[in-house]
């Protein structure tokens, strides 16, 4: 068996794949956070809960309505996005213009409500969710066996990240969005409905989180607390990348995921803290984050 740095090659490739998958979720979630923060100046603590809601929506659709994975991939983000729009219209909107910390505290409270309620209804244990029949099994890549579903997750998340990036950088709607990020008053003076733009942006960010949740359901199981542990790591990712750039958030997500996977191979004890350590180092060397600018 071939080895690399004294580690069996299949184990190394396996951990890199797991790192890529974790990185996919970091990337999708930090992307949503960056989009929301860019326009609304709100750090969306509910992001983890919205990810969890997406996974639960898929689980509930399957269990109670017999609706499978593929429709859930559309329906879950739509419903979570709709809930998010209600939250923005009736709660977040009242906090614009105040210190951004209030937005953080409000969304933190909402996350506690959602997670507490789901824990009360469904218990803390994870619920299994099987991947669709088309994506089960594994494929031999020559150097390793890859479960098809995991490959699909990496591909789908790359597609989603790229799509969001194109939407923001290359479309008219994205141009409005970027312009409103720079100067909302001026954009409104040009006749763009900025409040509507804010609402849609929050809905889009939440829908992205929910989509990530559906993709995650077959891998991590569906549990009420799946989001809260993840969101803190994603915060660290966001601090490392800086929230100024969409592409920066995506790249940082994948890179940190892979680095975490590699740590699992070479020094497993540190794997749960490696991202935080990297964050500390980045703060020392480049406080604004790798892709960020000092405000």
């Amino acid at each position, binding site marked *: 068996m071939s080895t690399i740095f004294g580690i069996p090659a299949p184990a190394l490739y396996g951990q890199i794949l797991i790192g890529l998958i974790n990185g996919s979720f970091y990337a999708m979630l930090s992307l949503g956070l960056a989009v929301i923060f860019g326009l609304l100046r709100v750090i969306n603590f509910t992001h983890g809960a919205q990810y969890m809601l997406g996974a639960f929506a898929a689980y509930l659709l399957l269990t109670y309505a017999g609706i499978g994975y593929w429709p859930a991939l559309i329906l879950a983000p739509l419903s979570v996005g709709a809930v998010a729009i209600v939250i923005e219209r009736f709660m977040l909107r009242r906090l614009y213009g105040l210190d951004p910390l*209030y937005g953080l*505290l409000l969304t933190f*409270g909402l996350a506690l*409500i959602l997670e507490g*309620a789901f824990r009360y209804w469904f218990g803390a244990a994870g619920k299994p969710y099987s991947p669709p029949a088309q994506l089960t099994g594994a494929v031999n890549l020559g150097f390793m066996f890859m479960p098809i579903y995991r490959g699909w997750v990496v591909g789908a998340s790359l597609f989603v990240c790229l799509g969001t990036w194109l939407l923001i950088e290359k479309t008219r709607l994205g141009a409005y969005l970027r312009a409103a990020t720079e100067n909302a008053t001026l954009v409104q003076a040009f006749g763009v409905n900025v409040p509507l733009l804010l609402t849609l942006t929050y809905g889009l960010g939440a829908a992205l989180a929910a989509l990530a949740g559906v993709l995650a359901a077959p891998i991590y199981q569906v549990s009420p607390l799946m989001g809260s542990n993840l969101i803190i790591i994603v915060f660290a990712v966001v*601090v490392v990348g800086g929230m100024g750039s969409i592409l920066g958030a995506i790249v940082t997500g994948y890179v940190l995921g892979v680095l975490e996977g590699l740590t699992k191979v070479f020094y497993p004890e540190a794997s749960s803290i490696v991202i935080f350590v990297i964050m500390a180092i980045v*703060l020392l060397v480049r406080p604004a984050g790798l892709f960020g600018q000092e*405000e």
Partner: protein
Amino acid sequence: MAVGTQYLAEQPKLRSSSLVLGAVALAALLAAPFFFYPVFLMSILCFALFACAFNLLIGYVGLLSFGHAAFFGGAAYFTAHAVKVWGWEPLSGILLGVAGAAAMGLLIGFLAIRRQGIYFAMITLALSQMFAFICLQAPFTHGEDGIQGVPRGHLLGLIDLNQPNAMYYLTLAIFLFGLFAIWRIVNSPFGNILKAIRENEKRAISLGYRVDRYKLGAFVMSAALAGLAGGTKAIVFQFATLTDVQWQMSGEVILMTLLGGIGTMIGPIVGAGLVIALQNYLASSQFPVTVLIGIIFVICVLLFRRGIVGEILELMKRKSKATA
């Protein structure tokens, strides 16, 4: 608008009315163990001190730390370990907890003050989560079990703390000491500079103050006082577990302070009392506590951002203005 600026009035000078109020409160605290369950009271005192320590940072420097559980829970671990494994006397065990929390505050604060506002909150949250992971894996914390069966021992080798009243009065003394320390810090020249930084950081810099040093100093003091609360809690409850270092605890202390009134002297105490009483009350019912905590958060942020005490003070201020 900075969070702390909601209640801008300076601390009132010690007037006779507040002296009377203080004397009544002290008498009530001294008599309380004869009317209420002492452990319940001690838990309120510990969390009230924790919330006051947290408020020192958010209320007077305008920094929202989302990681204060690391200092509270970390000190609890240090104290519990010193007292149980090394057989230290309880008060020196608590002091070790304070020193440990201050050292952690220096480390975390040094990193966190490099960014501001929302980033500061995220960095403290991430670093405290890292500490929680370390506590889960380090051998001396005993992972999921925590440190159980910590002996209360004899204070200075003399007073048996296994008597509930002795333990209560020690906790009360520590609480009052911590409160006095905070009051002194806030009303010192140092405290005035902190408030200046909160109001306008750039102006404070242009006046020649090394803002980062003041922020770090306040952060370490806040961490040390949170550690005082955590170390005392470890002796009172005779255990230290992961619950105290996790982010939910950081959230709880934010809620206590927000509910009572950010930037007020007694707001955090009121908030801590209410939250602990609610948790105690709900412990026997079916209703999930987290949901209620979340609901209070949302209501506070949307409807009364000054907190209970802050809103009352604002009302009084308006009244006195109307009559003047």
